[in-house]
């Protein structure tokens, strides 16, 4: 049933918990998708409410994921356990900039998987999009785990933006991080 498709380069997890890879997320991945997208712990700092129906998840995959300029499933041993994406701005003045987003099923937290997957995804996005100069991430001030992922991946913390956005009805402070195509890992 699985199609053999061109896969993104594989990375390996330093903690030996399986081979991490990135690939397109498909409609047939909907049940795996629900495992993280339906989890309130995962959705806590995300803009979406946890998905409660397969239909809503299929609509999201069809309407947002499939046409997205860069959206990948994070896979462990070939099985989707999360997602990572980088937006694209259509206006010429803003095309140099893309916003990173990612989520990982809670059973896979704490093993360096997000760190590895985000590093690979950012490299891929820069490689595929020559006009992309800056990948930025907007992270809730309380989301320490996500801030650690970005710091480990060589993102620079640029500042705290007070009352930047509304998350599920509450106004939140956020931290903005960025990595440039010219940044070099130290």
């Amino acid at each position, binding site marked *: 049933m699985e199609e053999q498709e061109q896969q993104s380069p594989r990375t390996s997890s330093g903690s030996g918990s399986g081979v991490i890879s990135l690939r397109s997320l498909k409609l047939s991945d909907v049940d795996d998708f629900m495992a993280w997208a339906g989890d309130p712990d995962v959705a806590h700092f995300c803009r979406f409410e946890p998905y409660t129906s397969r239909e809503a998840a299929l609509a999201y995959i069809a309407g947002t994921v499939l046409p997205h300029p860069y959206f990948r499933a994070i896979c462990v041993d070939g099985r989707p356990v999360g997602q990572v994406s980088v937006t694209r701005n259509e206006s010429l003045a803003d095309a*140099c*900039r893309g916003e990173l987003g990612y989520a990982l099923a809670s059973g896979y937290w704490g093993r360096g998987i997000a760190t590895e997957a985000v590093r690979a995804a950012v490299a891929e996005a820069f490689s595929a999009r020559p006009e992309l100069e800056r990948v930025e991430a907007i992270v809730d001030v309380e989301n320490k785990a996500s801030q650690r992922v970005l710091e480990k991946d060589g993102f620079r913390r*640029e*500042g*705290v*933006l007070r*009352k*930047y956005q*509304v998350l599920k009805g509450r106004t939140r402070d956020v931290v903005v991080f*960025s990595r440039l195509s010219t940044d070099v890992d130290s």
Partner: protein
Amino acid sequence: MEGVDLSAVSLRPFRISDADDFLSFAGDDQVTRFMRWNTLASREEALATIRDVCMPHPWRRAVCVGDRCVGFVSIWPGSGDDRCRADIGYGVAREWWGKGVATRALRMTLSQVFGDLPDVLRIQAFVGADNKASQRVLEKAGFTRDGLLRKYAYLKGTLQDLYLYSFLSTDVVPAAAD
């Protein structure tokens, strides 16, 4: 050089009759240099901009000294999850630089705009890293510098590092120095 009686500075909506004054600063490359606007080239363009952009705008004001329009302040609120924040932009005619007009106009804006746009809790300004004059105006008007956003956007063909400044509805507008 004479100082300005800053009590003569006021904010009001744009009028079609502001077209010539508008052209005199919006048609000046030195004023539009750090803005996304293209420099206006004719009275017709000035009229069209006032009619099509300034007047229907969510919050744009003419900055006046006496009854003469010498600049503008614009507030662009976000929508949806971004509705708590708004971007500010402003410009003042070159002959009114260095007299406290822009600072006064920003302080007046900050005193009014949160009442006019109740969803907005944060006003923010993106400023070129080399635009020292505008950075000083924002700081004197009470904005906080949040950080430097590297290679954030193109401005007239050049990739820019931009400072982001903010002022919250709960922040205090500094008292005028004079």
